[in-house]
C-alpha cells in the first residue's frame, strides 16, 4: 500500500499540471480565439449600441424600465435594486411564503391600478430565476399596450402589431415558449414614435 502511495505521487503531480495546461488554459484560450474572430458579437455579450457606438445594453439581458412610455420587464431580484447584470439572483422564496404572496399581491394591485383587467399572466408578477430574464410572454406584453400607446399618443393597434411582429415562436413548434424581448420591443417602439412624429 505504501509503495502504491509513493508511486502515485509523480503521475498525480504531472497529470494535474498537464491537464490544467490543456483543459484549463489551451482549451478556453482556443475557444476564445475562434469565437472572438468568427463570432465577435455573441462572444462579447450580444451588445447593442446607440448611433454613437456606446453600449446601451445586451440583447440577452433585461434592463429596468419604469417610464409608462415603455414596456416593463418582469420584476427582478438581481442585486440590491434589481436588474444588476453583475449579480444574477432569484428570490428563492417558497411556494407557501408570506413574503412571496404579499409581493405578488402588491404587483397585482399595481397592475389593476394601471387598468389591467382579467387574469394576470404569472410571468408579469413573479421574479425570474436569473433576475435578468429579457423576455415577457406575449400576453404580458399585450396587457401593457394601452398604457404605452396612451403615454406615447400612438395607435393601440400599431403597438399591438409591434408585439406580434417581435414574438418569437417555439423551435419546431415544441421547444421553448412564445416570448417577446422587452429591450428589442422598446427599441422598435422608439423607432415607431420617431417615424410617426416625422409624419
Amino acid at each position, binding site marked *: 500500500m505504501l509503495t*502504491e502511495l509513493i508511486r*502515485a505521487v509523480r*503521475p498525480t503531480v504531472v497529470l*494535474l499540471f498537464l*491537464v490544467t495546461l490543456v483543459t*484549463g*488554459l489551451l*482549451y*478556453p484560450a482556443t*475557444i*476564445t480565439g475562434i*469565437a472572438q474572430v468568427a463570432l465577435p458579437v*455573441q462572444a*462579447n*455579450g450580444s*451588445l447593442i449600441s446607440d448611433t454613437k457606438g*456606446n*453600449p*446601451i*445594453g*445586451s440583447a440577452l439581458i*433585461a434592463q*429596468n*424600465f419604469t417610464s409608462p412610455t*415603455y414596456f416593463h420587464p418582469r420584476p427582478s431580484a*438581481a442585486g440590491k435594486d434589481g*436588474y*444588476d447584470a*453583475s*449579480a*444574477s*439572483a432569484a*428570490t428563492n*422564496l*417558497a*411556494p*407557501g*411564503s*408570506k413574503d412571496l404572496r404579499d409581493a*405578488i399581491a402588491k404587483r397585482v394591485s399595481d397592475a389593476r391600478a394601471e387598468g389591467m383587467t382579467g*387574469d394576470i399572466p404569472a410571468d408579469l408578477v*413573479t*421574479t*425570474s*430565476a*436569473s433576475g*435578468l*430574464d429579457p*423576455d*415577457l*410572454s406575449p400576453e404580458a406584453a399585450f396587457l401593457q399596450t394601452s398604457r404605452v400607446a396612451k403615454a406615447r399618443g400612438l395607435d393601440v393597434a400599431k403597438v399591438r402589431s409591434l408585439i406580434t411582429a417581435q414574438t418569437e415562436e*417555439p*423551435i*419546431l*413548434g*415544441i*421547444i*421553448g*415558449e412564445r416570448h417577446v424581448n422587452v*429591450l428589442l420591443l422598446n427599441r422598435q417602439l422608439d423607432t415607431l414614435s420617431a417615424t410617426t412624429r416625422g409624419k
Partner: protein
Amino acid sequence: MTLSGWSMILLFLVLIVVLAKPAGDWMHALYAREKMPLGFIEAGFYKLAGIDPKAEQSWVGYAVSLMVFNLGGIALLFAILKLQGVLPLNPQGYSGMETLLAFNTAVSFVTNTNWQNYGGESSLSNLSQMAGLTVQNFLSAAVGMAVAFAFIRGFARRQANTIGNFWVDVTRATLYLLLPISIVLALAYVVMGVPQTFGPSVVATTLEGAKQTIAVGPVASQLAIKMLGTNGGGFFNANSAHPFENPTALSNFVQMLSIFVLGAGLTLTFGKAVGNLRQGWAILAAMLLLFIAGVAVAYGAEAAGNPIHHALGVAGGNMEGKEVRFGVAATALFAVVTTATSCGAVIGMHDSFTAIGGLVPLFNMQLGELVIGGVGSGLYAVLIYCILAVFIAGLMVGRTPEYIGKKIESREMKLAVIAIIVPPLMILGLTAIACITGAGLAGPLAKGPHGFSEILYAFTSAAANNGSAFGGLSGNTPFYNLLLALDMFVGRFGVILPVLAIAGGLAAKRRVPEGPGSFPTTGPLWIGLLAAVIVIVGGLTFLPSLALGPIADQAQVAAGTVL
C-alpha cells in the same frame, strides 16, 4: 400541461435513445484501450508522468491512485482559489477566497458536486474559473468514468487479479472523449449567444439612462464541460438560468441532451463489454421508466401552479424563479434531468418550485442518482442496485444469486450494502445535526416545513454529489461549508471505494455458464424488479424525511396557509 410540452419531452427521450448507442460505442473503444487518433498525445502524457500504460493495477492499487489523485486535485484547486488575487487573468481584481469557502469549493468540484456557496461573476477570477474549476469539471467526470470502467472489468474479466490502470482510464476519457466533444459544444454555444471573452465587465447606459454593469467572461468553454461532465457548477450565480449561460430554448435543449448522453451511453458500453448488449438496454429501460415517472409528476405540479397565487388573480403555471423563454415544461424537464444525473445545473430555482415539483428533484437525488446518473457514477450506482436486485430475487427462490455470470456472495453483498447505506447515513445524520444546532437552524430562508426541506435538500445534494440547491439556504457559513464538504467527500468516496473492492472481487471469480435456473436479467420482469427495488429502498429510507418536508409543505399550501 400542454401537448407541445409533452412533444418536447418525447423528442428528448427519442434523441437520448438514438444517441446512446454511438456514445456507448465510443466509450467502449476507450474502455477496451483501442488505438485513438492523435495517440501520440496520450503517449506523451504517460512518458512525462512516468506512467507505464501496459501495467495493470489490482483494485487496491487502482483505489490508492484514485485517492492520491483526488486529494492532489483538492489541494491544487484550494491553492488557486486562495491565491487568485495575486494570480493573472483577474480583470475584476477579485481577492483570494475565504479559507473555509475555498475548501468547500475545492472539495465540491473535485467530487463532481459543484455545490456553490459563492456567486461566480461576483467573486471568481477568469483564471479560477478556467484553470481551477473547468479542469476539475473534466477530471471529476473522467474519474467517474474510470471507476465505471473498473467496475465493468470486474464483470467482464474472469479469474483476473487486476481491474485496469487508473491513470490510463482518466487520461483517455479526458483527451479522447470529454475534450473533443466540449470543443464542438463550446463553439455551438457561442453561436447561440453564450459569451467567450477574457475582457472585463461592460458598462452600458440603458434606454432610460441608468448605468448597467454587465458581467461577461469565458462562459462557453466552461458551460460545455459543465453539462457534458454532469458537473453543474455555473459560471454565473444564476447558473443556466442566466441568459448568458443559456440564451435560447435551443441552447437549453442541447444542454439537457449533453447532460444525459454519456450516462445513457455507458449502459450500452457495459452491455457491449460483457458480451450482451441487451443487459445494457435493460438497465437503460429501467432508468427511463423512473425518469418518465419523475417528469410527469414534476411537470404536472409546476403546470398546475400555486393555488395561493391563483387566489390573487394570477393565471397559469408556477413562474416564480423561472424564465419565460423556457417556460414550465422545459424547466420541469430540466429539473428532473439535472437531478437524475449528478449535474445539478439549474434553469429555474428549485426552492421556488411547488412543494411536489420540488419533491421530485429531491427524491431523484435520494435514490442515488442512478436514473442515467452522473458520468460513470450513474452506472456504478445502478450496478450496485442490480446486485441488490438479483440478491432479493435469489432470496425469493432460494438460489445463490448471480449477475452476468458472476456469483454474488457474502463479500459482494456486504460491500454493496455499504455503498447503498453511506449516502443516506450522511444525508439524514447531518440533516438531524443541522436541525438541533443554532448554526444549522440559522441557514434556512423559509419558515416551517419548507425550511426543513431547504436543509434536507442541501445535505442530499451534497452527499449525492449533485450540487443543485434550495437556494434560500445561506450555505456560506463555517457550519455549512465544513459539514457540506464532509458530506460531499464521504458521499463520493464512500461509494467509490466499496465499488472498486467489489470490482476486484468479481474480476477474480470464474464465470458460471447460464443455466435453466439462472434468473434472466434482460426481460421486462427484470426491468420491473430493478426499478421497484430502487424505488422501494430509496422510498423506505427517505419517506419519513419527505413527509416532514415537501409533503407537509404541500398540505400547508393546499390549505392556503402562508408562513
